[in-house]
């Protein structure tokens, strides 16, 4: 069952992404509700996959980056569905669900067929730490997406290009607002993640190992998003500059999840 869902799930996300792309490029509006329904069903299948994984392997799927990727994909999907319902804007679906499909493909391709968990990771505090991290990463990912869309529309208006991006995207102010909301949520969860991580480290290892690549990238990302929020609130930075900062923060997350996880030594590799 887990194996089957592991194949079906990325296929479904790719299908939904293609449908959102069709919706975006064809400017065809009537299929919108159908695509949202299909996304809802796909997220239902994803939830089933997570439940089946938990019941099969008897732990929350946070033991490896591949397991975390599927949780991030699910969290982004759910947050996007909520944003779409709030804004009644489906034109950003292609970008967000495309990213979800990417995370799920990466997860499905690299996830282990058999699974054991380090006893250290069975602590409830660790589960809270990873849950907060997943929500934080998802918020930051979504903020980066809205920052990208903001920049696309910004340069289109500046350059008098009134093509598909201009026609389909919501106003700059809405994109900026969604970018900041997602960034604030991401920053808050990242703060909780770091605090819980430090607390868990203290309890599990009796000392805090701050000189770790994973912690360094997390702290740099946290600092960048702190600047993003403060700059907008107190320093009156332009939307463009803030968007570039968010993208830098997202790049740090990508580094943390790829380069650090796969190529650098980090105590975060528990398996």
């Amino acid at each position: 069952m887990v194996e089957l869902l592991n194949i079906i799930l990325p296929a479904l996300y790719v299908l939904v992404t293609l449908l959102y792309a069709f919706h975006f490029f064809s400017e065809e509006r009537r299929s919108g509700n159908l695509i949202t329904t299909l996304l809802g069903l796909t997220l239902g299948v994803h939830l089933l996959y997570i439940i089946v994984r938990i019941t099969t392997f008897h732990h929350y799927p946070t033991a490896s980056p591949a397991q975390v990727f599927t949780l991030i994909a699910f969290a982004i999907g759910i947050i996007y569905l909520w944003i779409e319902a709030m804004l009644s804007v489906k034109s950003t679906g292609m970008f967000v669900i495309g990213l979800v499909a990417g995370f799920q493909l990466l997860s499905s391709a690299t996830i282990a067929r058999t699974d054991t968990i380090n006893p250290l990771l069975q602590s409830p505090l660790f589960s809270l730490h990873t849950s907060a991290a997943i929500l934080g990463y998802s918020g930051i990912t979504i903020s980066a997406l809205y920052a990208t869309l903001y920049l696309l529309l910004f340069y289109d208006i500046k350059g008098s290009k009134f093509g598909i991006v201009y026609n389909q995207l919501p106003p700059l102010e809405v994109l900026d607002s969604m970018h900041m909301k997602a960034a604030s949520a991401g920053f808050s969860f990242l703060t909780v993640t770091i605090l819980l991580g430090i607390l868990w480290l203290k309890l599990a290892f009796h000392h805090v190992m701050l000189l770790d690549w994973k912690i360094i990238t997390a702290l740099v990302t946290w600092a960048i998003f702190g600047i993003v929020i403060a700059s907008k609130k107190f320093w009156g930075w332009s939307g463009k500059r803030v968007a570039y900062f968010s993208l830098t923060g997202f790049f740090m997350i990508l580094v943390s999840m790829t380069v650090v996880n796969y190529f650098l030594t980090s105590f975060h590799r528990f398996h």
Partner: protein
Amino acid sequence: MKAFEIYVIGLNHKSASLEQRESVAIAPQELDTYLKMIISSGHWSEVVGLSTCNRTEWYVVGPTNPEFVKCLRTLLNIANSVDHWSNPEVTYVKKHTDAARHLFRVAAGLDSQVLGEPQILGQVKDAFTIAMEANTTGPILNNLFQTAFHVGKEVRAHTEIGAGAVSVSSAAVELASKIFRDLSKRSALLIGAGETGELTARHLKSKNINTLYITNRTPEKAENLATELEGYALPFDEYLEQLAEVDIVISATNSPKYTVEAASAKPLISRRQNRPLFFIDIAVPRDIDPSLNKLDNVFVNDIEDLNIIVHKNLDLRREEIPPADAIIDEEISSFTDWLKSLEVKPIIASLHRKFEQLRQAEVEKSKKYFSQENWDDLEKLTTGLMKKFLHIPMMQLREAAQNGNGQLKRIEAAYELFDLKTDHEE
């Protein structure tokens, strides 16, 4: 044999010149006289007149008789003191479903000069209301126009025929709406209260712009427009200060030099703390220094940009014609079914009346053979028999009307077989 026919006779922006359209245009308060004149000709039982700046059309219901249409042309020529109504190159006549389709396309904005423009549906509604009040409508035009209103709404709800700005002034507001989420929380400055500037200001006002400042070389013009649009007039030498405050600047002057120079604007813009500022330059030669567009959070768009938006939106609207026509096809089909059912109604009524008379006569004759307490049973028995005898012929007639196959022959046969008379003959 068809009891009635729907006709539309009219001229519009495609068939007639502006002068020709002007010569037959009817003011709303005069429509009533024309409607009554057409009814009093004795040829038509129902009439609605639609007269806008782009079309004058008469929707009439009456017997299928081309001579009556000729008479209507003559009548309209006399009433308007023109001869266009007899000119087939200037006017068009459509009948039955073609007339219905024409009205549906008009109501949906597909026949408008600016494709998909929304005012026409209101104008069709007004025309129908005037005819209703003049008592010149009946069941057929009532249904036709109600269906047209429904079609107008459906097409707008299910297609993008009305989407996007299709004038320079509305394109300017559309562009502003791509930057700001809610114009009701924004303020704007209009430099130059000329025609295009005024139109743009009106569009902004219709989008509930929060505060509108107006400045003009001739202060009276600014003051008059400010009063009308509930804005504020500013002296022409003080408008630059507003660059630190307002969110949108529309410039539409005839000035040969920039009204907003980069050197003088930059210090004021720096006081905005990066709040977006949108310049709409509708002037030729341009009023706003284009180098301001290089500043973060300052957007400068000129008339060429607005024209690009207008043309793109018109292309998008044209792509919506086939889906709009598909909606109209569906409604035409339902309306045609209704018309067919209407055509067979007189014979069904006549058939029923004939049999009822026969039944009553026979019942009266037979009463003497029955005791009085059985008369009710006699009534029930004969009524039941009559309904059973008539059930199949009536069903066949209704089916013939729906399918249209051999309808005329069946109806004629029914008239002959049962020696029926129409309502009119009776």
